[in-house]
């Protein structure tokens, strides 16, 4: 049996419709969307527009033009942080952030932006009390991860968004792990900016990221270039999404993402979430029963991602054995989130991360547990 338990990195397998849509673009469409008036180009443009409508729908954004496509969530995050923050600005971020946030923030700190961490509890939950106090003085931006990529902790985003709204500070939500799993009503919640991946719970191929920017927020683009619109002007268009979408977009990726979002909407986000979180609860409980295994449970779970260690064995070794002896794919180490691992007390070796997807079965979960029990028993 081959078991893939690394859906927090990227979902696999993709729905058949996703594979077919991407393949069809490469085979039969093959044009650059928004560029040219021939039939192929028109079809390509329609595919992108359709994907944009679906992305807007699933993120709770009324106007699809406020949804921007990038190459990944990291690009979306860089765009916002570097296009919004200026030297002297104060930005707050949680102690569970990914390097996609921390590395651009660290770079900005070297350019005079003041970065301040909001502490989280040992399971990764945001400390709302301290957060409230930190919001009292001048804050230009708050960056929060919605769901932890390490242990699936769900952040109290509704409360945080309300506090940000009262303080008139834009909230920038990193929804890389939550988009497609957690209901998101970006406009209704008053979220300022939102970044997410297309290839995780939205089930699209890698190579597409999504960004939402509230109309009142003046975020500068990361780059300028051809958009297929207002080509007579040398200045970058000011309207969304063209302002942020320079260069030929990833049409096969967008065609696949469009089908991925359809799959989520048709299957039902609740059903997918219940399946993955149900498996996570089962895995957590069973792992907790194995002597020498320590599970890092979240207080409130937002995804199926489970993190644990086997005492005395480097997580990388546990992952290697699961892969080599049992053909089970898990992710080990720091998961590009060293700050979050410091919060959980698992730095520098990190954890073994198991992230089931919608196609993961109970039989797969049992097989994984058998493999892990073998490791623990053999370790003695």
């Amino acid at each position: 049996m081959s078991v893939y338990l690394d859906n927090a990195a990227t979902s696999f397998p993709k729905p058949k419709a996703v594979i077919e849509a991407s393949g069809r673009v490469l085979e039969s469409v093959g044009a650059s969307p928004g560029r040219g008036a021939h039939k192929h180009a028109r079809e390509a443009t329609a595919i992108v527009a359709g994907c944009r409508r679906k992305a807007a729908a699933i993120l709770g954004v009324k106007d699809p033009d406020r949804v921007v496509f990038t190459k990944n969530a990291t690009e979306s995050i860089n765009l916002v942080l570097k296009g919004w923050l200026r030297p002297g600005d104060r930005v707050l971020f949680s102690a569970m952030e990914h390097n996609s946030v921390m590395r651009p923030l660290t770079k900005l700190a070297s350019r005079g932006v003041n970065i301040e961490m909001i502490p989280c509890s040992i399971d990764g939950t945001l400390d709302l009390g301290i957060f409230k106090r930190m919001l009292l003085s001048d804050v230009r931006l708050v960056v929060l991860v919605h769901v932890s990529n390490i242990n699936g902790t769900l952040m109290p985003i509704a409360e945080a968004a309300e506090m940000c709204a009262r303080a008139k500070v834009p909230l920038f939500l990193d929804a890389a792990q939550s988009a497609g799993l957690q209901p998101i009503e970006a406009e209704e919640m008053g979220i300022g900016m939102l970044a997410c991946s297309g290839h995780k719970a939205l089930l699209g191929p890698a190579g597409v990221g999504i960004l939402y920017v509230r109309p009142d927020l003046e975020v500068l683009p990361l780059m300028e270039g051809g958009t297929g619109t207002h080509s007579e002007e040398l200045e970058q268009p000011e309207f969304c999404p063209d302002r942020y979408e320079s260069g030929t977009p990833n049409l096969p990726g967008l065609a696949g993402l469009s089908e991925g979002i359809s799959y989520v909407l048709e299957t039902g986000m609740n059903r997918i979430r219940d399946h993955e979180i149900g498996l996570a609860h089962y895995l957590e409980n069973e792992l907790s029963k194995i002597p020498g295994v320590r599970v890092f449970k979240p207080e409130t779970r937002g995804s199926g991602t489970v993190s644990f260690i086997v005492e005395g064995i480097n997580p990388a070794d546990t992952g290697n054995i699961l892969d080599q002896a049992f053909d089970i794919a898990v992710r080990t180490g720091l998961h590009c989130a060293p700050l979050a691992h410091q919060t959980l007390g698992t730095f520098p070796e990190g954890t073994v991360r198991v992230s089931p997807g919608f196609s993961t079965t109970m039989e797969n979960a049992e097989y994984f547990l058998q493999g892990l029990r073998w490791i623990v028993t053999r370790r003695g």
Partner: protein
Amino acid sequence: MNPGAYWKEGRMNTVEELDNSVTPASVGIYDRGGKKIEQTQWVIRESPVTLYLNDREIVTLLCAGHHLDELAAGFFYAEGFIVSPDDILGIDIDEEAGKVNLSAKGEASVTERLWQKRTISSGCAKGSLFYFSLDALLSKPVKSDIRITPGQIIDRVEDLNRLSETYRRTHGVHNTALADPDKVILFREDIGRHNAVDMIVGHVFLHGIPLRDKMLITTGRLTSEMLIKAAKVNIPVVVSRNTATSLAVELAGSLGITLIGHARAGKFTVYNGQERIDVGISG
């Protein structure tokens, strides 16, 4: 010390085994000017021996060809294929064909899949010191209260040197001994230092000899494999008259093993675990 006393107890190589380990060879010895002396010299025997587990071929070792039951048991135990002496149903040795089949209870297919599989680092965290997955799984820090005086260490190394008749005759073997602070308990020699250690491991495994209060003395280099083998069977002190490698020193630190090299001419170097060196009562 009289090595013969140990042989009589059946815990050392017997004289017959020593005779089987060496063979005469007619050689010509030349000097720079081309002057030649015809001579007969002893050379160490080298034989390929293939180890089978439940009739499945696992590995072929080049060895001196003796103590094959211990070699097989030690190899399969140290490599994680068998866990307890009770697992062993029988060891069939065909010396002529160079085959040893160890019949064992239990399922070793998972271990077989893992054996010799290189660990792969993702570069996303502080990685493993081990380069084989099975070693990472089976090597645990050694906990031991053993204390040894410098004099005892030097005496046991000298015991090892005295015990190897074959080395004196051929200069072609590695010697390994298991000792407690006061005496050598077991001595084995082979063309490969790993084989000699596997024989020791096999013997103590088959006879249920506890190792937490023992030291392993070898003539070979102190490499990571030696440390890993010691950790797998809970030997707290490893000594050699040879030198240690960087990875061996690093592993000794993480596995809690006292690592001693350059043990010769009345001196030794402690790379790790000096707390086990008892200088208070050293004579």
